[in-house]
């Protein structure tokens, strides 16, 4: 560091204020002083745990006994021979395939409606968004109560219609309760789409109107293309969120050690991971499962970006500087 400083000030008079001498270097040092908390946190709380999980995934650790053996990639091979792991992964894929488009579509529809000049739309927006701020545990408990066999509103409605009550919270119906729970929070998607809609220049839509475009035409030809980056963002975060979802745990026993008792229809990948860690104490295997999830998430994200490259329309280059 001092070498650089020497080189940079060959003719500087000694009496000049210290602050003015090597502005670049001083600024660089200050920059790193400011971002240090994040860098340290990132290394200690993200990079290191990921590395530790990888090391564990190469062992047969059970978390307690000191005798852990290095087993190479045996755990990863085991993943592909474990029917529970594979079926839970498939189920999680289906879960994402159902809930992500449903939430985005519902959110977009609501956003379009709430973007019209109607009375009290601020209040309507707030009320429709409200479920999205209910904490996950509160939301899951609420749905447990609605779909309770005897005291739940869902069966109350059914009996009012003269139908037989349904046992919702067990297989095979419990998965629909999960889907409903997720879609209930579509207000989050609505807010993001609404922000996207408000960013669309009015002139474009007005020009289309002058040219005689119908409402549907300007929606499909202008609004949707301009909104596509926002939708892509939601698809990616939605899929990442679904792959990590452990919401079924909250719908069932509500404890980590109870992960193994989640009904089969809701036995998602993360539930299986929790069951391996906290019931079976298979730390090595569970860590391999986590790395597998990490790889799947990366792959799916890249795939979505790749596939959407042709369909997503950016007004500004995505990597362009502000």
């Amino acid at each position, binding site marked *: 560091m001092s070498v650089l400083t020497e080189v940079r000030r060959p003719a500087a008079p000694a009496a000049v204020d210290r602050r003015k001498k090597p502005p670049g270097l001083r600024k660089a040092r*200050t920059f790193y002083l400011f971002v240090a908390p994040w860098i340290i946190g990132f290394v200690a709380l993200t990079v290191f745990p990921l590395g530790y999980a990888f090391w564990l995934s190469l062992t047969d650790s059970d978390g307690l006994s000191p005798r852990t053996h290095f087993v190479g990639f045996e755990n990863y091979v085991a993943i592909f021979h474990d029917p529970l792991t594979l079926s839970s992964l498939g189920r999680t894929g289906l879960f994402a395939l159902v809930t992500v488009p449903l939430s985005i579509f519902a959110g977009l529809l609501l956003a379009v409606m709430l973007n019209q000049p109607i009375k009290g739309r601020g209040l309507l927006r707030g009320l429709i968004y*409200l479920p999205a701020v209910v904490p996950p545990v509160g939301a899951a408990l609420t749905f447990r109560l609605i779909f309770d066999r005897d005291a739940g509103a869902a069966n109350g409605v059914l009996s009012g219609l003269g139908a037989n009550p349904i046992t919702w919270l067990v297989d095979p119906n419990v998965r629909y309760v999960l889907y409903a729970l997720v879609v209930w929070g579509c207000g989050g998607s609505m807010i993001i789409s609404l922000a996207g809609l408000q960013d669309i220049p009015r002139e474009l839509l007005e020009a289309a109107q002058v040219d005689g475009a119908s409402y549907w035409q300007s929606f499909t030809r202008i609004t949707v293309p301009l909104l596509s980056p926002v939708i892509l963002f939601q698809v990616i975060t939605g899929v990442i969120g679904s792959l990590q979802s452990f919401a079924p745990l909250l719908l069932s026993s509500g404890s980590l050690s109870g992960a193994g008792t989640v009904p089969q229809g809701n036995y998602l990948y993360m539930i299986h991971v929790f069951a391996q860690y906290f019931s079976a104490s298979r730390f090595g295997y569970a860590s391999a499962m986590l790395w597998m999830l990490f790889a799947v998430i990366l792959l799916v994200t890249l795939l979505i970006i790749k596939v959407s490259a042709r369909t997503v329309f950016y007004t500004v280059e995505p990597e362009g500087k502000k």
Partner: protein
Amino acid sequence: MTRTYRWALSIVLLAVVLVMLSPILWLVSTSLKSPAEMASFPPSWWPSAPRFANYTDAISQVNFIGATQNSLTIAFISTSLTTLSSAWVGFGFARLTAPGKKQLFVVLLATMMLPGIVTLVPTYLIFAKLHMVNTYWPWVAWGLGGSAFLIFLFRQFFAGIPREMEEAAIIDGCGYVGIFWRIFLPQSWPVIAASVILSFTHAWGDFVGPAMFLSQDSTTLAVAMATGYVNDKGLPMNNLVAAGAVMYVLPVLVLFLFMQRRFVSGFSTSGIK
């Protein structure tokens, strides 16, 4: 747009509001039912004689007060530290230059996409090795590290402040720490408000973190609600579950209703642009 169209739209939206709020109404209705009413089928839509004692029962049945204190402690630790740390780091990214800054910023944005739960379990194992499980130190560590999303929010805000402010301060002999502390931070209260609300709701709502890191006595309300209220036969007492859940959810809903704009601003700027 015609009048009829506007009316039709309003009616559709009112119906949507009703559907969206009906679960919450059911929760409140259930929280006021007597055990006898809970046992009858079909269920009544609204209790004939609201039983407010459910609320006092819900508080005494589990360690409600203790769990609330724990929730508030954790929420306070993570909200204050995360906000301060994110503002500090965001200032660095907005106002200073250094070799490697661009790459670091890309890493920062990429971490927003990282699956949090994948790192959480191994983090738990590491803290267990350090004997820091069942303490609040993990929340101190997470708080100090800041949140990538909030760093991004602060960075966007600070980047928009005119350069003259900073230059004038430098001429007056103020260092960058002083500039951050005395000039930039006091101006950023809209972002601070958003940050406080978002981190508070996150900490209050978090389930896996406390479920993994804390034991029964030191755990938060979220965990206590998820597992509590079971009778001697191991069956859930649903009217108490509802009463507990109402009290657990209410602070967040009230916060939302009063600070709606801040909630929404946090989301609508969320890394789309």
